């Protein structure tokens, strides 16, 4: 056996050379995913509803589920501002007709709720499915996700109280989302080769600015983010400002 070792070593060296001779000798690393693995993880639902599993859930079922699993954070009507920004509010029947939410340009609207902003119903379904409830994500059944989505939409009058949402009618519901026409693709900030939509010039002297201070941090608020004296190094040319009564 011992005498064969040089032969084996030579064979190994040959095969290593062969591997390096390939253009990309790493290309076979990894393994094929099984259909069950892909099914387990490929959960995204696209705007064209690719990936949406069949199922259904009613507003009434959703209301029960909501009270049990959603209301503690979002409020019984999706209105709560206690933990997260409200989901519901700020949309009208006129918005549903137009597909644009008027309150987005109004003054004095306290929040921009989820239903004021969202323009794809698939987004709601996908997110509830993947990430809700907050402390037990991915625990809802497919039908429960339909039900929770139906209840949420009913709170903004997108669907009536006796509605049952399903994979069959979700495309019709999309046509009633209040802000469905409210988005533009931000091309200039999507493309690294974009040029920017706001222009400045690199003026060096006698620049046309008046330099007036329009807004300044007030002395009374130094403690708003803790005592800055404790947030700066103890040596160097500066110290943190001492905030009396800091939080």
């Amino acid at each position, binding site marked *: 056996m011992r005498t064969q070792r040089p032969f084996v070593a030579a064979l190994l060296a040959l095969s290593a050379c062969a591997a390096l001779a390939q253009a990309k000798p790493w290309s076979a690393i990894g*393994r*094929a995913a099984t259909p069950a693995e892909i099914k387990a993880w490929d959960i995204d639902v696209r705007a064209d509803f690719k990936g949406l599993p069949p199922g259904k859930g009613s507003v009434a079922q959703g209301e029960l589920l909501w009270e049990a699993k959603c209301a503690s954070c979002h409020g019984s009507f999706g209105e709560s501002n206690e933990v997260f920004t409200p989901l519901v509010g700020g949309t009208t029947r006129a918005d549903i007709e137009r597909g644009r939410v008027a309150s987005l340009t109004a003054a004095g609207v306290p929040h921009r709720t989820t239903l004021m902003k969202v*323009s794809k119903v698939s987004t709601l379904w996908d997110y509830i499915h993947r990430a809700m409830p907050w402390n037990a994500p991915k625990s809802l059944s497919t039908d429960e996700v339909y039900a929770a989505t139906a209840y949420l939409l009913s709170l903004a009058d997108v669907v009536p109280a006796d509605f049952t949402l399903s994979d069959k009618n979700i495309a019709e519901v999309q046509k009633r989302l209040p802000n469905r026409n409210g988005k533009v693709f931000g091309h200039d*900030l999507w493309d690294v080769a974009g040029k920017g939509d706001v222009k400045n010039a690199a003026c060096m002297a006698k620049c046309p600015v008046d330099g007036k201070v329009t807004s*300044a941090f007030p002395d009374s608020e130094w403690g708003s983010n803790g005592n*800055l004296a404790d947030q700066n190094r103890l040596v160097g040319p500066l110290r*943190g400002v001492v905030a009396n009564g800091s939080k």
Partner: protein
Amino acid sequence: MPNDSPSAAPGRILKAPEGQLDTARLMAARTARRSFMGKALAMGAGATAGGASAADGDPAILNLPEHSKGLGQGVATTGYGAPSKYEANVQRRESPGLTRVPQASVSFCPLQGLFGIITPNGLHFERHHQGWWDVDPEQHRLMVNGLVKQERVFTMDDLMRLPSVSRIHFIECGANTGIEWNKVALPSVQYTHGMLSCCEYTGVTLSTLLDMCGADLKGQRYVLAEGADGSSMTRTIAMKNALDDVIVAWGMNGEMLRPENGYPLRLVVPGVQGVSWVKYLRRIEVGDQPYFTKDEEVHYVDLMPDGLHRQFTSVQECKSVITTPSGGQKLLDRGYHNVSGLAWSGRGKVKRVDVSFNAGRSWRTARIDGPVLSKALTRFNIDWVWDGSPVVMQSRAIDETGYVQPRINQLRAVRGTRSIYHNNAIQSWRVAESGTVYNVQTT
């Protein structure tokens, strides 16, 4: 040895933190600093320690400290070293009231305490959407699926065998400085600009993985990146980026990623807002449409004055900020200061940084001595002699595309004040006569 130049005053007379002295005492001490006898007075006349009189000189010199007279500690006292106990103030911090739950929140990087361009791993800003995890790397998997010839699974063992790259890039949250579109709201650079960090990342390029799986690149293509945590964060990545410089990374400044930053695997999308740098990366899907995920539909959309939201606004445009001195700090003295700051661009290298000490009426070009890397933080410095009068200082970066960092009013003229995201305005700091630095906005 009288010394009339305060900027040349050797040593430190006042006990830190000097900011705790009231203005009268501070000014008295500054005046006293100008003569040797004055120093003794400032110390308290006749103060002695260890037998040496303060009048003879600095007790820190005259009285040998313990560390000069005793035996220090041995090697590997701590297997993983930690900063000096005297550096305990330099920490990442939450902004009180910004969010209601710490699992869906932000901690801000202490930019005012950092040097150079690299963020220490323990001070990297955090943004979690549903809490962070310390994921077992042996159980972690990456799946590549969708429009590819072979849908594949990789273990960390597999990934870490692949040809790797190590590159330095900044990461900035799209909402960095977002609270100041309308007016000044925060006291210090940690909170105004601290959703910003810069590390050397090590990993395999996404283009390598897409090539290995035989990605179909005919026609419009998009990549979905998905995390393995509760939020299973999903973001659409432009195929142009994916094939260019996106990295599937496990390394961060020479060690593995920190759990708070996605251990054991995260996406690095240079130049693009942090939300796209999906942590705990478990899946890459190739598709023929953008995915309109929650963080592309409900958050990270920029509200324009006409009520339309801009969507898929990803690139972090050229920006800079002076970090020393900066808001909430107090200059200890007049005279010479090395003003220092950071500049960056999501579109490439920083070409130049100018600094103004008169609210933008005139500018001088700053020194850039360190590395200038594409889509990385760039450190700049400039000499300044403070005469004690109020000053508004600003920095303005220009990137290699020729884009000039805009003033806040120029941004508002196009985008209004309610977009939240992508505020890359020139930052103004006002130094008052007292030496206190205020966050301000100017016209």
